[in-house]
């Protein structure tokens, strides 16, 4: 016999209460872990989606709207800019990579994103990588001969049920010019998973067919300068014109995070209460077990058990409860056990201080 065996016997002796306590610990811990992972995932998604390109050039207006629209496909689309802006940036000696992006309609809610192959290129400085899970990338077809080849983000493909080779169109007037799915992307855990990509030529042709538009518009240009020191100059230059604005996506994101920070704080407070609640439950469970057991504790003491032994039994018991609860959540295992010990401390001290002579009698 060891005190661990004694503690486990006691736990088994009140199986239902032990199981429920462990379960509540596990649930509480799961809630905390899930929230932390989720909020970290959201932030990571935001950062990875934006920081590859240090400058975003689009139509004059709200910088937040531009970033939300171009990077996250949220908010109302910003006005168009002319294709010549792209040419200007592409030919600028300070620019390493410029990628044109045009955004328009959507198919079943999945936003059309027209761009070039550059959007998916794997540059050494890029954190985000694109890979095909099925089919191939669409071709950058010449402006006069649109191929209507589409490539679907992972979620867009899964949720529309479209497969490689399928044809689809949005709106009656496009029935004669359906898009053909040529590829499906692997998941990137970003807004690109919900997009439908195709060439600029196809996009412009669509505009001409459906809206009789003769111009070749763009929504924005993603820019990566050769040297970071050129960033400020580029930023200033494109803000001076009447038509365009240039924004730093990371700076805009920081603003958004500041707003989200308030929500984050609230979530933290709620989680703190959840942890408190779980601890309280563990505490109450151990406390009532100790009260119920006062006579048994006094008996053990009368048999020669030391206070430290009794303390050890109760502490081990609450730790074991936390271990069982925490075992379902290996990520924070250590922390849960420590908290469990903490919650068991007071009942353990109560057990430690149990007066022997007063509690041996049958009526107490």
């Amino acid at each position, binding site marked *: 016999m060891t*005190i661990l065996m004694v503690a486990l016997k006691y736990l088994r*002796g009140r199986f239902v209460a032990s199981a429920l306590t462990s379960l509540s610990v596990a649930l509480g811990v799961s809630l905390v872990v899930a929230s932390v992972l989720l909020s970290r995932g959201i932030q990571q998604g935001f950062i990875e989606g934006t920081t590859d390109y240090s400058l975003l050039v689009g139509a004059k207006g709200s910088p937040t709207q531009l970033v939300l629209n171009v990077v996250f496909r949220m908010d109302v689309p910003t006005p168009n800019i002319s294709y010549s802006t792209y040419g200007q940036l592409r030919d600028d000696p300070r620019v390493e990579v410029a990628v044109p992006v045009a955004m328009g309609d959507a198919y079943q809610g999945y936003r059309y994103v027209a761009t070039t192959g550059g959007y998916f290129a794997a540059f050494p400085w890029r954190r985000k990588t694109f890979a095909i899970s099925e089919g191939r990338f669409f071709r950058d077809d010449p402006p006069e001969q649109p191929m209507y080849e589409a490539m679907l983000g992972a979620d867009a493909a899964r949720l529309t049920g479209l497969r490689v080779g399928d044809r689809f169109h949005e709106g009656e007037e496009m029935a004669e010019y359906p898009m053909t799915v040529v590829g499906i992307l692997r998941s990137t855990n970003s807004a690109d998973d919900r997009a439908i990509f195709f060439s600029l030529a196809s996009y412009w042709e669509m505009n001409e067919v459906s809206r009789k538009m003769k111009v070749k518009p763009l929504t924005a240009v993603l820019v990566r300068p050769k040297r970071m020191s050129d960033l400020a100059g580029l930023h200033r230059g494109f803000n001076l014109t009447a038509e365009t604005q240039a924004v730093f996506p990371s700076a805009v994101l920081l603003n958004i995070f500041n707003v989200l920070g308030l929500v984050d704080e609230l979530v933290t407070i709620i989680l703190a209460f959840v942890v408190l609640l779980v601890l309280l439950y563990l505490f109450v469970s151990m406390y009532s077990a100790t009260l119920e057991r006062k006579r048994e504790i006094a*008996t*053990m003491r009368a048999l*020669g058990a*030391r206070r430290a032994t009794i303390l050890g039994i109760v502490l081990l018991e609450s730790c074991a409860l936390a271990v069982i609860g925490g075992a379902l959540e290996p990520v924070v295992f250590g922390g849960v056990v420590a908290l469990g010990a903490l919650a068991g401390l007071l009942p353990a001290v109560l057990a430690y201080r149990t007066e022997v002579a007063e509690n041996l009698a049958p009526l107490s």
Partner: protein
Amino acid sequence: MIAGGASSAAPRPQRRLMTEVPAAVTLHGVKKAFPLGNGRTLDALNIEHWAVSAGSCTVLTGPSGSGKTTLLNLIAGVSLPTAGTIAVHDTDISVLPEPRRDRFRAHHIGYVFQTFNLLSAFTALENVMLSMMFADAIPKPEQRRRAGEILARLGLAARLSHKPQQLSRGEQQRVAIARALANRPPLILADEPCASLDASTAREVLDELLSVCREAGTTLLVVSHESAVLAAGDQVIDITTINRPEYRVRFVERV
């Protein structure tokens, strides 16, 4: 069947006991007072001198509230006297620091209660082994065998893996006796061991207790009212003859 069963109920002169046989328990000037609040205390015990001779079976009797259980608890060292010394086999337990007193109790004193006080989550065998765990005197692999032996000696060989609630009251008290004997203590204290049992079971359990103690030469100090127990003791002491509290309830003057 029980030796000394015919001995008189009157206490023998204590000085003679002291000189003739070594004492298992010796009390000198022992007082125990309980605080009642409001500055009042209850004087429960005031024993000038008393000794229990080693190897004997002494029965302590007296009206309820006369301090019998208080005295047992003092001898067991689960509570401390307000004044005086209590020696158990030449060790003054009243001056030992608590952890050493616990250790001493685990090794030297077995305690049997009126209501058995078995631990309900544990089997008969485990209840006995727990006692060994607290004393930590018997090697771990030995404990199971030893516990089984003691229980078998008390006729419980078929009940080793039963929980207390699966046992009859007589069986429960036998397990409690086995538990008290587990570490082969030289002194066993029994507080009304037969009061919760029917007459015939009480008789059987008492016989078992006496015979195992006699076999091992263990000193037995029993608190009891029952005539069967009184008849079985080597000597019977009415606690009122040795305990003379100054006042039942005393007002302590506040400074």
